[in-house]
């Protein structure tokens, strides 16, 4: 720590130096020397300390004169309340486990029912329905075949012998 000669302390202690003497840190030697030499500063310091100590003592006596509360009933009430809350949570958890989980996890009977439900669409796709669907699609194809001109006809690209050639090719492919 930097030490100063007391001659550098002009006049009395500044606010900062005065506070430094009282803040509880080790007293600098130059400040100590000044307090030893300067009576007004020493008296001021003593007056400050005595006044604060008097207030401290008075305030403690005032505080001791206040009635002491009994906190035991409050603590017991809080403990009871927290126990009730814990029990409520426990009951809620048990209800969740007891009612929620069975609702989520299917029983054996429900499994059988689910299987039946899943099997029903498959049964609906019976042979009769498949046949009727196929017939319907074929009739649509037939209806469209006559009404829809071929792209060659549409763009007049059909050569005179090309149609016969194509029909012959289609017949050959069908035969194969």
């Amino acid at each position, binding site marked *: 720590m930097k030490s100063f000669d007391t001659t550098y302390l002009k*006049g*009395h*202690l*500044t*606010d*900062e130096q*005065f*506070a*430094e003497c*009282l*803040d*509880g*840190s080790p007293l600098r030697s130059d400040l100590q020397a000044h307090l030893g030499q300067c009576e*007004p*500063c020493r008296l*001021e310091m003593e*007056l*400050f300390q*005595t*006044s*604060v*100590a*008097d*207030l*401290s*003592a*008075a*305030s*403690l*006596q*005032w*505080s*001791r*004169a*206040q009635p*002491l*509360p*009994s*906190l*035991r009933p*409050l*603590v017991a009430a*809080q403990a009871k309340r927290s126990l009730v809350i814990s029990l409520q949570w426990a009951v809620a958890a048990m209800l969740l486990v007891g009612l929620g989980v069975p609702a989520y996890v299917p029983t054996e009977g429900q499994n059988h029912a689910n299987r039946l439900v899943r099997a029903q669409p498959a049964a609906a796709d019976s042979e009769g329905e498949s046949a009727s669907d196929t017939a319907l699609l074929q009739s649509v194809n037939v209806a469209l075949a006559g009404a829809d001109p071929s792209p060659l006809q549409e763009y007049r690209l059909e050569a005179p012998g090309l149609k016969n050639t194509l029909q012959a090719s289609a017949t050959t492919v069908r035969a194969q």
Partner: protein
Amino acid sequence: MMYPGTGVSVVTELDDIDALVAQYWPRVLRYVSYSINDADLAQSITQDCFLKAFRGRASFRGDCAVSTWLISIANNLIRDQVRLKKFQFWRKAQATALDVAEMASVLPSGESSPESRLMVNERTEQVKAALDDLSVNQRRVFLLRFFEGMDLEEIAQTTGMPVNTVKTHLHRGISTIRAKFGGKA
């Protein structure tokens, strides 16, 4: 179980809420009352402090005195009050502010003559009035230094402030009160 520096069985002490109150209530109440300057609110905060301490007694490691631990908890509660702005309301109300006149009746009886007692009363009132002019932080630090006898490190630990901040608050507080006494600087 004995904790270092305390010399008492802290576990037993903390397990009995009423014994804890009997031993530490006055100091904590004084600190809170003078920090917030409201007797009713101080009662409420001090009660919360003891209930919180009792609930969290298992977390007390014994590395400081029980009173220091309690004052740390009280400090947190005071800080919460200030943050919640409730303090502003209470401060404005001042309905139950600490009464210096009431306190005068319990001033130390070291001074024998009526004149001396009158002077002590006047000085005490001056300090009290000067304390009221400090900011909450300056007042808290001042009280911890001069009422609780803590050094800068202990105050920093109790309030959660850096040591330099504690030092700044303390120096400003001392300067303000010195000025009230007609300081020479």
